[in-house]
């Protein structure tokens, strides 16, 4: 046994740490091939005047024209503004809904586990399907939402949801909120369940009201979870492609064109992949900053 194994006896104390590298190798190779290499290609493309990426052809001369064009383009700044608006609106709404539902189903009542399942169910609906649902609900002629608004007397003629910039933005935001709040709900619920009952018992003994218990126990205990969740939700909105693209394609009049959508449009509708890569690299920088922020918030995770 010893003779045969001698060549690669990783159990020997002096070689045990080799295994760490060996186990990591497949992941490193694969990640290098399908993530790192594409990232490098992406950065490289962003410094070339490229229409359709052809890796088998000699690279074009180095130029910073894409970036110059990008930072002077009103479309880019519009996309930044839309992205920011969407992040602020959707994140805050997701938090109100998510925290609210989490607090609600964290109560003790019969059927609580079913309620928990139902409340977070949109999480399990694929984004494309969510788009189908909301595209129909906000249909201009026979959609439910127009009928509801008309019946309530909020409007006197039907809104054309997908051709009015503000209305389209509202539809996109609504869809994203519905798809996004369950994540906040699930995370907050997990956070709520990790708060020891003793804290509440002690607060009751001290005569704290329900509102005070929420303010001084629940929310402070949830803060770490909320911190990480906020970053994740914001990143999700920042990155999202399918909801906006299938729902509005970024229109009308670029009212729903986020940086993600702009990148994709430039690359695959106008075939300006060099320019699109430049936008992509800018988003990458934003992602790295966000990643650093999450790391600082959750140092234990490494």
């Amino acid at each position, binding site marked *: 046994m010893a003779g045969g194994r001698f060549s690669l006896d990783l*159990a020997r104390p002096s070689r045990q740490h080799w295994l760490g590298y060996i186990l990591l190798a497949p992941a490193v190779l694969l990640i290098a091939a399908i993530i790192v290499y*594409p990232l490098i290609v992406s950065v490289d493309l962003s410094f070339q005047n490229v229409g359709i990426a052809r890796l088998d052809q000699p690279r074009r001369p180095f130029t910073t024209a894409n970036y110059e064009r990008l930072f002077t383009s009103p479309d880019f700044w519009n996309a930044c503004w839309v992205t920011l608006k969407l992040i602020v609106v959707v994140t805050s709404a997701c938090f109100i809904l998510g925290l609210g539902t989490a607090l609600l189903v964290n109560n003790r009542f019969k059927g609580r586990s079913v309620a928990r399942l139902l409340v977070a169910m949109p999480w399990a609906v694929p*984004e494309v399907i969510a788009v189908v649902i909301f595209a129909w609900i906000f249909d201009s002629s026979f959609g439910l939402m127009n009928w509801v608004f008309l019946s309530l007397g909020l409007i006197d003629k039907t809104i054309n949801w997908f051709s009015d910039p503000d209305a389209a933005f509202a539809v996109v935001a609504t869809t994203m909120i519905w798809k996004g709040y369950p994540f906040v709900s699930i995370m907050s619920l997990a956070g709520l369940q990790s708060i020891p009952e003793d804290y509440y018992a002690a607060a009751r003994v001290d005569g704290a009201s329900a509102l005070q218990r929420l303010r001084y126990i629940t929310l402070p205990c949830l803060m770490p979870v909320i911190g990480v969740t906020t970053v994740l939700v914001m990143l999700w909105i920042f990155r999202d492609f*399918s909801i906006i693209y299938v729902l509005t394609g970024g229109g009308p009049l670029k009212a729903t064109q986020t940086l993600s959508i702009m990148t*994709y449009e430039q690359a695959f509708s106008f075939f300006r992949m060099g320019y699109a890569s430049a936008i992509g690299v800018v988003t*990458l920088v934003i992602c790295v900053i966000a990643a650093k922020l999450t*790391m600082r918030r959750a140092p234990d995770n*490494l």
Partner: protein
Amino acid sequence: MRQSLPARLFLYASVVLTCAVLIFPIYWLVVTALSQPDQLRQLPPKFWPDEPRWSVFGKILEERPIFLWLGNSALAALGAVTISMVVSVLAGYSLSRFRVRGGQSLGLFILTAKMLPATLLVIPLFGIFRMTGLIGSMWSIILAHATLIIPFTTWMLKGYFDTIPRELEQAAMVDGCSPLGALFRVILPVSAPGLAATALYGFVLSWSDYAYARTFLTNAQGNWTANLGITTMKGEYISNWADISAASILVALPILVVYLFLERYLVGGLTAGSDK
């Protein structure tokens, strides 16, 4: 503590109302699918069809290759999850147990990769797949989904392995296992629930993708995934919401079923390591 009756009633009322409002879109999808197409063009809308048209599912399955799409989605997910799991189990274990030089930076990179937008990677991947002739093939979508899944699964599995005491593999090694033997004979069997949750989560990630499928597979009809198929219907069937809804239900069903029955695992994966 026992609550008073009014408080309990109020609680139940709010729970029922909240659930009703939040679930309504899903309910509306079902109602739409089961309605006669001309009924959908009437106002006020009907909140339950007069005679539910169950045959719509049969009809849509005949008209559209839904099963092919679902099969493609499943194949892409299985392929991507298998590749990702093999790689991430090993890497996650290494990151959890060994002090590897550069391990810290690799972990940081993986965390960053989790946050990369698909729209960033899709351009170079498009170039790479075109060059290698993979464009339009299932391999393109499997590899692209692996870029989505690997960062998540590696991170989740590292977190899971961190919860398993080191003494387990130390005992196994004293008992005569090689370090790899300890991993496969002891650590992996013990981690089965964590492995299942992680794989399931990867499956959902792959199943939900649209960006990669739309970019790489649009011209390869035979390889369309479910999400891609549905969006092509939306484009052309502007008026036939009943059919799209029926198809959507069929596509959403697998994930919804997984969610309803394995919610504990999925949620466990979602919240792992992030509540610190």
